[in-house]
């Protein structure tokens, strides 16, 4: 049965702004699973909003809906969608808005939670859930209205592998029950077993197929750049002896029985599931997070404390767009250079090198997600720090910017910088020298096949 059909739909966010969708045709029927892929900023999220009917802008073309069509939209960030404190209240939110009497809510809420495989007490605090559980809770909060069509925005990027497999099991059952599903995802392969129709969205045009980068810019560094300078080799910049890490609330989050080291010219990955303590470890190394118990940790020969390293240490936190505040990209990049009395020309050079000089005078908040991410990283890179800590720098990056990020990282490491980057999935890249893995409460070094290895 046909649920929803778009015929020649176009729309934009303002008369002067470019069209977001152009002559889009799409038909969705019960039990179907569609996947839309495309580069960041291509209008995928807008398409979902349009399908969900929450877009308040006028559009051209016809949208046909099955008369009693109920849609459910699950967006990217759980933080902005979880509106209540407890699991029960969260799921019941939609029922409250529909004016369903309180006595009738309970069975509906329980059923919705069961359908997503969440067997929790109804007064469980939402804040105590893992990200994967939160994601399924958001789905339950939509399922409670018994939608015919469920729309999911980029689930893969934020979930770890465990979360993805749980989600897959849930989605498979929903499709079997006859629900239609539209996924927006640039890693379609993760959901290949349930997807029936592939679409790609590029410059507002929707066509069949999987989006692949056809002209991935290979910003390969010249060979000499990749050769680490001899004087830096083997210099230990960060070292920790065996320690246990924990907060007041959770005495031991993880243990590191053998300690670890970071040496100059290394790119080390820190891999672990969501909530395993990667971010906290990075923050501790940067001296941003002070734990109750002292960790035997030396960074650049000193005990870490906020603000003592100046330009020698850089930390890129998640969602780096929140650090942007200057009126132009160039000013943004020069901010730290000015504060640390470093030559301001480095910002221009860096933009040139990354082929982003055209952005120099734009407001950083008008850039796409990937561009903002890269600008934040580049503004750290032009300080030429000795230690660079990156928290999930590749999340949500499309392939275009992925290449540029690696170019920057390789360049920095050849200048003697020690780079530690966290991720919730193993990163397979030739430049990675070692991998620290954070699993089951243990931080240990794991062997990887590629690249040179140093024993920490």
């Amino acid at each position, binding site marked *: 049965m046909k649920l929803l059909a778009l015929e020649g739909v176009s729309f934009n966010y303002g008369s002067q702004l470019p069209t977001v969708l152009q002559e889009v045709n799409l038909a969705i029927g019960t039990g179907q699973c569609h996947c839309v892929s495309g580069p960041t900023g291509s209008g995928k999220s807008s398409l979902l909003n349009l399908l969900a009917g929450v877009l308040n802008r006028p559009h051209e073309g016809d949208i046909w809906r099955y008369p009693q069509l109920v849609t459910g939209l699950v967006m990217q960030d759980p933080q902005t969608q979880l509106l209540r404190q407890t699991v029960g209240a969260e799921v019941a939110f939609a029922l409250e808005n529909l004016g369903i009497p309180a006595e009738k809510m309970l069975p509906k809420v329980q059923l919705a939670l069961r359908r997503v495989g969440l067997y929790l007490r109804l007064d469980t605090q939402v804040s105590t859930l893992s990200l994967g559980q939160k994601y399924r809770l958001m789905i339950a909060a939509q399922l409670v209205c018994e939608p015919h069509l469920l729309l999911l925005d980029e689930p893969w990027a934020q979930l770890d592998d465990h979360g993805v497999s749980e989600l897959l099991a849930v989605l498979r059952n929903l499709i079997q029950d006859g629900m239609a599903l539209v996924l927006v995802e640039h890693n379609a392969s993760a959901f290949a077993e349930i997807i029936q129709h592939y679409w790609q969205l590029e410059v507002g045009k929707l066509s069949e197929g999987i989006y692949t980068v056809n002209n991935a810019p290979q910003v390969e560094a010249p060979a000499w750049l990749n050769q680490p300078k001899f004087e830096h080799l083997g210099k230990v910049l960060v070292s920790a002896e065996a320690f246990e890490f924990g907060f007041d609330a959770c005495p031991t989050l993880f243990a590191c029985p053998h300690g670890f080291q970071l040496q100059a010219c290394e790119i080390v990955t820190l891999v672990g599931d969501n909530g395993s303590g990667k971010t906290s470890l990075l923050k501790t190394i940067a001296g941003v997070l002070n734990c109750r118990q002292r960790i035997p940790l030396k960074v650049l020969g000193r005990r870490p404390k906020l603000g003592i390293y100046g330009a020698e240490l850089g930390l890129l936190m998640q969602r780096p767009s929140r650090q942007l*505040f200057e009126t132009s990209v160039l000013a943004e990049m020069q901010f730290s250079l000015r504060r640390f009395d470093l030559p301001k020309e480095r910002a221009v050079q860096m933009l040139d090198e990354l082929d982003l000089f055209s952005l120099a005078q734009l*407001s950083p908040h*008008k850039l796409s997600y990937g561009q903002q991410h890269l600008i934040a990283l580049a503004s750290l890179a032009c300080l030429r720090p000795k230690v660079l800590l990156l928290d999930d720098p590749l999340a949500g990056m499309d392939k275009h910017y992925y290449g540029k990020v690696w170019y920057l990282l390789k360049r920095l490491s050849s200048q003697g910088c020690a780079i530690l980057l966290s991720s919730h999935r193993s990163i397979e890249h030739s430049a990675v020298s070692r991998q620290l893995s954070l699993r089951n409460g243990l931080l240990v070094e794991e062997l990887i096949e590629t690249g040179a290895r140093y024993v920490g």
Partner: protein
Amino acid sequence: MTKKIPLSLQDSLFVGFCATLLVALTGMLRLKLGLSGHSMFLMSFFYLICYGVLGRFGSMTACGVIAGIVAMALGVGKGGPMILLKFALPAIAMDLVALLLPLSMNLHWRCVILGIAGCIAWAGKVALTNVLAGMALDVVLIQWGLSVLKGGFFATLGAWLVPPVLTRLKAHDLLHRDKF
């Protein structure tokens, strides 16, 4: 009062967030500074941000009332229903004065005037309590004058920061409106 103004959900949420942030920061600063009058700095800053971003009558009052309710719900300050007045009165005064000010006036001056108006109302609330408690009028006036002086300094400081912030928000295309 807030009932009559149909703000979009998005704008209302923004007002609510500003109010919450205001209350949280006030609570935090009280621990750090222990200086009376500093709450006027944050109040004038956030109310005027709401005024600038939403640009409609009632936005400051909405922010003030929500801040009062949030403060009560969080138990900030000495608590009790009085805190509602403490946040709402300056906001209402600022909204009323904003109605009188011509839009052609320089934004900086408009903000400062509104900040001071808020401060007078803020000190007025304390004076009102004192009068109700039966305090002698001279004493009330002296205390009121002192409050206005202290609060006025902070309110002006807060108001002075608002126009550049609004200009920047506009430069980033984050405001839907063309003029303040």
